[in-house]
């Protein structure tokens, strides 16, 4: 098996050189894939490492997207300010939602997150003065990196911003799951009762990781708004939360890198097939089922297992 450091280095080099290799549309597709990847990775923090399946993760992506869109459109601040606003708003909203939701476990936790997410979706859908209702907010500009700084308008420049954010987030998330805090999360996932019997209260841990995951989902949303130039209620809808779950499962639960790859696979299938047939969803479903049956652990989980065996 190739040492993981080597493959990580190879991936970094690949990310750095692709803008000169890929055609323009491939580069914007890759940017899209990376943003979706960041979203799926943030979901993996709570789903893969803490065993909490959230059905409402899109809400935080959406909050990030709206915050970023409004900051860019109305205050014309540099993009990083918008990213910060998106991540912070998502994190801030996740505090009360997480506080309530983590009181429950399993399916009840999933239902609570879904309920809160649909509530936030409805707010975005109805608050027309602020969010534009179902029409959303269009024409979000790509402002520079900082005042007088480099422009992010070119697809290459924006790609680098997204790639840098994703790589940094990956390192931060890795550090989180490998820290004592992360180990505690995995202990909760494996056996919450035992964790409690050891004299620790799992709830603060769950709440903190829930908020961290929301912050990264918010960051992904905040990147999405200037990249696509708009934000609309669809990015908060439960369908997108469900797609996030599919991305994580396809890529490999509890691997961080896996969900990024899963997100890429998910969108690529859609991108390619929907050019040929409007029944592309059937094929996405079939691929999903095949992966779940034949590649338990997803793409990365299977690759690791094969690597360990060979």
């Amino acid at each position, binding site marked *: 098996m190739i040492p993981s450091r080597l493959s990580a280095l190879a991936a970094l080099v690949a990310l750095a050189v692709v803008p000169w290799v890929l*055609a*323009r*549309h*491939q580069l*914007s*597709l890759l940017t*899209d894939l990376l943003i979706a990847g960041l979203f799926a990775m943030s979901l993996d923090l709570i789903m893969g490492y803490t065993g909490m399946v959230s059905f409402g993760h899109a809400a935080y992506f959406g909050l990030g997207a709206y915050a970023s869109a409004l900051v860019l459109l109305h205050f014309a601040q540099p993009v990083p300010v918008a990213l910060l606003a998106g991540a912070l708003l998502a994190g801030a909203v996740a505090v009360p939602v997480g506080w309530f939701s983590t009181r429950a476990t399993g399916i009840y936790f999933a239902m609570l997150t879904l309920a809160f997410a649909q509530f936030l979706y409805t707010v975005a*859908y*109805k608050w*027309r003065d602020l969010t*534009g*209702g*179902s*029409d*959303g907010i*269009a*024409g*979000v500009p790509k402002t520079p990196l900082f005042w007088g700084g480099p422009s992010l*308008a070119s697809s290459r420049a924006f790609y680098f911003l997204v790639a840098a954010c994703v790589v940094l987030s990956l390192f931060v998330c890795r550090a989180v799951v490998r820290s004592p805090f992360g180990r505690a999360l995995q202990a909760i996932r494996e056996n919450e009762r035992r964790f409690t019997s050891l004299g620790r209260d799992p709830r603060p841990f769950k709440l903190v990781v829930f908020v961290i995951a929301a912050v990264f989902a918010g960051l992904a949303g905040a990147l*999405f708004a200037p990249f*696509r*130039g*708009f934000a*609309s209620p*669809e*990015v908060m809808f439960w369908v997108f939360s469900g797609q996030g779950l599919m991305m994580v499962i396809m890529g490999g639960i509890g691997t961080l890198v896996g969900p990024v790859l899963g997100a890429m696979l998910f969108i690529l299938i*859609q*991108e390619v097939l*929907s*050019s040929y*047939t*409007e*029944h*592309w*969803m059937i094929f996405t479903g079939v691929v999903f089922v095949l992966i779940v049956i034949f590649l338990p652990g997803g793409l990365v989980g299977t690759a690791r297992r094969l690597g360990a065996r060979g």
Partner: protein
Amino acid sequence: MRRRDFLKVAGGAAAGVSAPIYLRTAWAQGPIKIGMPAALSGSNAQYGIQARRAAELFARDIKAKGILGRPVEFIYEDTGGDPATAVRKAQKLVEKDGVKFLTGVVLSSEALAVSAKCPEWKVVFMSTINGAGALTAKAFHRYFFRVNTSGPMGARAVSLYLAESPMKRFFALGSDYAWGRDSVGSFTTQITAAKKEVVGTDFPPVGTKDFASYIAKIRQSRADGVYLALPGQDATIYLKQAHQFGLNREVKPIMEILELENMKAVGDAMVGAIGSSRYPFTVDTPKNRDFVKRFHDLHGIYPDMFDGETYEGLEWLAQVIGKAGTDDVEKVIDAWEDSSYEGLEGPFFMRKCDHQAVQPGFAVECVKDPKYPHPIPRILATYPGEKVTPKCRTEEFS
């Protein structure tokens, strides 16, 4: 070389040898590509399919002569009605396929998102479906053109008709999202200006399956007519239920858009409903009669509103490219501004100030006609373009 590439080259070579000299250079330039990121799946698929049907007929009609002697190629992409996917698909069409003209976008949210990107991509966005008034007002830019009747224009045609009708009291029912609320707002303003009364409004959520409580409310309001801005499926369900409750006899249904799709789904229960139509296929012009026949020959059905509107858009675009003598985007825009076109239902004029096509507006009634397998729109009144087009870059009428 793959087989397909070989065939292309061989075909090109054959065309080059046999074609007259002026065509040879044209073929060498390759096809004129038109991208259609349309909702072909999901709850709004019927509109995307209408756009595609129109494009298929247009492609067949123009096959022999092409545009500027160049072949025309349509590239369809399914957006599923999701704005994020629509932008991604549009970007793919522009960056990968090199299309200079986008059309067939279905939802207003998709249109606003894709249109906002067009100045950056330097491509023309031709709306043939999108109703949102903002597209030619607040969100207007040089690369956007609207060939179709907008939402406010449709509401205007109905209001003009109602102003002269004996009906006095109206209830307005709009789906609770941008289009429904805008339509009801626009209707209320205009009907009040005509010294009539809106006695109640309500906004059921999109996807409402049970309209009983709304029907009770409408009945209690003692309105003469109920103005409905409900999307396809919701309108179908409402009309069927209102018919069961016998409401349609007491309170006349007035549809923001009266489309064939609804008439087919609802059937006889819809007879008597009135409303505006972007394009009623029953318009009696020689050009339209011919179009309806060609359309029926190809698809085996009668053209719905956006079949007609999209066909007109494509034909006009081809005419404008011909006039510009090039498919260069900037030159096509210049040629399009302040240009005229003879549409299926009458004269069209593309005004320069907001790229809204000035065109006739219609008030129609759903009637039964033994010649057709389903109810059809009968034209009650036709209004000239000047009367139904809003003031420049606004959603208001003088």
